[in-house]
């Protein structure tokens, strides 16, 4: 990696002041570093300054409140999320997603904020010598190249997939994200936080160069809620999702009162399937309805040369999640 200076952060004000308001990559933030270190070592990023967030007080921790719901600081480790008793009990989809990430070592240092803001795993993007569209080049090499692990939805013009497991789970739970910038803090829905390449081929979210994610809030869990995170991968661990489904169902017996279905590993952003949700909402879930929901989730899919299997896989995962809500 290139040399950089290293600053231990003391306050959010200091962090937002340090961040360059016009350029990405000059000043970068590091918490667990499980993603950033790889980018530095592969010369994908060459910042002049790294700001260590772990010295910031009060930015980790999980709070559960009946009225306010769940609040998770951005520096909370993935292990802490996976093991938290209230999350396991009331927000199973989130605990399952956290538990499915990488390896114990990575979960012990990786943080919520880092997981949401991590960069794509695309093998063209991660190759220093390949100047791809995401890095300012002319083409997305996956279009005519090897695309087994690439997007089937929302790709044009960059066919990366968003690698986060926590993001689909949190979006399915209706989470919002608190962001601090020079002008103070703002809160937005996590779903709106992520963007598609058509809007910005270079980034995966709306965060500005001088902003920082500080917290995620999840509304109180509704009664009679069932939630699941299903992640298909080629090996048990560590492996990123070929496709994943975060599903939250409000059930009345076998009838689905409301459904929230968010796909991971298949699009450049966590992909909310309003089509599948509409198919399930208000219905008695059975084999036919669940299959229909699966089919509706992928009806806009446009696979590349090597990833048509993801259409079937995603469809099957959505159907499986729906059936699980009935048992």
């Amino acid at each position, binding site marked *: 990696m*290139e040399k950089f200076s290293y600053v231990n952060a003391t306050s959010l004000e200091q962090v937002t002041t340090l961040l360059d308001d016009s350029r990405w990559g000059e000043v970068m933030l590091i918490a667990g570093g499980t993603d950033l270190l790889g980018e530095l070592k592969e010369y994908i990023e060459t910042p002049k300054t790294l700001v260590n967030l772990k010295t910031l007080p009060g930015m980790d921790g999980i709070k559960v409140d009946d009225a306010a719901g769940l609040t998770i600081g951005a520096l909370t480790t993935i292990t802490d999320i996976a093991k938290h008793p209230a999350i396991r009990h009331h927000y199973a989809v989130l605990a399952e997603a956290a538990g499915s990430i990488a390896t114990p070592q990575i979960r012990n240092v990786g943080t919520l904020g880092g997981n949401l803001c991590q960069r794509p*795993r695309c*093998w*063209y993007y991660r*190759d*220093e*010598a*390949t100047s791809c569209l995401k890095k300012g080049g002319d083409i997305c*090499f996956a279009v*005519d*190249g*090897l695309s*087994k*692990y690439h997007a089937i939805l929302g790709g044009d013009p960059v066919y990366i997939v968003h690698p986060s497991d926590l993001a689909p789970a949190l979006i399915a739970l209706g989470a919002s994200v608190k962001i601090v910038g020079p002008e103070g803090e703002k809160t937005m829905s996590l779903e709106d936080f992520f963007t598609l390449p058509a809007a910005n081929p270079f980034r995966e979210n709306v965060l500005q160069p001088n902003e920082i994610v500080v917290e995620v809030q999840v509304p109180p869990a509704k009664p009679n809620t069932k939630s699941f995170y299903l992640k*298909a991968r*080629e*090996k*048990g*661990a*560590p*492996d990123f999702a*070929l496709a994943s489904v975060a599903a939250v169902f409000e059930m009345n017996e076998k009838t689905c009162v409301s459904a929230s279905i968010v796909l991971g590993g298949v699009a450049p952003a966590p992909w909310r399937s309003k089509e599948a949700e509409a198919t399930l909402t208000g219905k008695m879930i059975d084999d036919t309805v669940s299959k229909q929901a699966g089919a509706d989730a992928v009806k806009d899919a446009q696979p590349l040369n*090597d*990833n*048509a*299997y*993801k259409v*079937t*896989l995603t469809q*099957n*995962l959505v*159907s*499986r999640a729906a059936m699980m809500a009935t048992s």
Partner: protein
Amino acid sequence: MASWGEASESRLIGKRIPRLSGKDKVTGKAKYTFDINRPGMLYGRILRSEVARANVVGLDLNDAEAMPGVRAVLPLIEVGRQIRYQGQEIAAVAAETDDIAKDAIRRIRVDLEELPHVVTEEDAMRENAPQIRDDWAGNQSEPNVREEGDINAGFEQAAVEVEATYHTPVQTHVCLETHGHVAEWENDENLIVWASTQGVFGVRNDLAGRFNLPANQVRVITEHMGGGFGSKFGPGVEGRTAVELARLTGRPVKLMLTRKAEHLVAGNRPSMTQHVRAAATSDGRIIAYDMKGYGTGGISSGAGFQAPYVYHVPNRRAERRNVAVNVGNQRAMRAPGHPQGAFAMDSLMDELAEKLGMNPLEFRRINDPSEIRQAQYTLGAQEIGWHRRNSVPGSGTGVKKRGMGVGSGQWGGGGGGGTQARVTINSDGTVEAVTGTQDIGTGIRTAIAIIVAEELGLNPTDIMVKVGDSGPGLPSGGSGGSQTTASVAPVIKTAAAAAKQKLFQRVAPQLQAPVEDLRVGNRTIYVVSDRTKTIKWELATGQLGMESISEGGEWDRELRQGGVAGTQFAEVEVDTETGAISVIKIVAVQDCGLAINRLTTESQINGGVIMGLGQALLEERFMDAVTGRMLNANLEDYKVPGTFEIPEIKSIVFDTHRKVTGVGEPPCIPTLGAIANAVYNAIGVRIRELPITPDKILTALAEKKA
């Protein structure tokens, strides 16, 4: 005639004995080449090409040389030469720290004139493809054709016929310890090299030749080694570069390959594509076999594979070609040519059996000439519960379907001469066994201790075994071809027996018995005709005074034997909605002659099964046709089995005789066919391309449905 004696007489040989270096390895005390640090040591790094094919037009080392902390910069390719694959060496740096070395290679300016490349077999064989080898038309070698019998006559007798194409992609070795060396010149004339190698004497002789040194002035040490699998013979460019950088700077230099370079240039198992047409008679005999196939070993040749394999085919024709691509060269990899050939053959066997309506195991019994495997079929089928297998493939109910399959393999492993060894008994009772072999993780160190301890009535921990060092000047061959134990064990055994005889001669007068009547007991020597006459080990050796006994041995052919047969059974479960495959159990029945150490023999079998499982289900090198680069030169997207993938493995040491035979390689062979056939038995759809990954399962199931 020399023999290892009867099993009932053995106190140690054939028992399960923990490896002597186990504790050092798990506590981190064991020092691998990567762990060697010398006073004043510099760090070496190599700049490699990211381009698959190019002319080198210019090379400017000035900026790198000018960097503070850089002690030497060495060009590794001349201007005017051609780069032929990604990863090819351009120049090397030695610097005070590894970080400086890493920065310095990025300051080397190389001017490349890019040329059209081909990195996949399909592109290489395309009409009008760029010609990347002057000596091969169409980037393909002349076919190697082997024919026996009369295939046309064979096909005329056919009751059923199968025609299919089988493919295995390039697999890389993935040694946990990458290739590398620490080189140190003691003066201009004496060179010492710590090497992660499978052959300390091979590295010694290579370096002595290249640096014009007498062989006895080069010492190569490999105390512990983190995996080679056939890829670590000779110093390679990186080893010679480390030595040259050390010579230029007058300082020790450590140069280890990066994980990326390990994938790119440190060898691989060639790919295989074979189109085969085969036939069987109505009574279940394979009668004809016609195969046309090719593989790539990179820019070089060496992409052979076994076809047909194991089973008897009277009328056969096999035509193989090498295809050249602009990718790093192949090297021997655990049972070269066998796993890929076995996968195709065992798949074909099942396809023929199904067309005949026969149980695939019965079909094998008819066509397998090996009596040993015939017995193994019975044992393995019993262990896996073959009767539970789906008689109709894919007939299981539910989303997750189970199936069973079988596969076979064979190997040599009979060892060879050329090993020198000494067993020394000192007057204080201590014993040393010294030889120039190397323990590449297989446990030969422990096997040597067991043999000597058995011979002398001691415990394995009493024996100081010194291997992995050319310094004592006791040569042994490289550890490859599953030859180490069968090459080394007979020499150690005869050396220990000779040392024992010498000791008997010293104590015979005191025991008032002829030498022939003396035997070793538990740390004693006694007279067989009168067991009251006995002397404790230390009292016996105490008489040696300053004159230690030190004896050599000989490679007694009667103590070893080549040729092993193996068979494996797999049970798998396939999730038909996600395509996920989990292997439930592998039963590996491995013929192996006399297992010196049953525990490490079982470990060898376990390791082979895991490697075979990786090739069957996970491993594949992905080359990008446009950029000419490997897309997964890492351990994230080049996937090897982890704990979640490893099933219950029942390793059965099938010892058919009491002569030593190597089994390092054969247990990785039958796994592929067993798993592929089990997947077919589970879902009723055959995957003819490895690795069998979820995408292939889902695609095949969708095609079947449509």
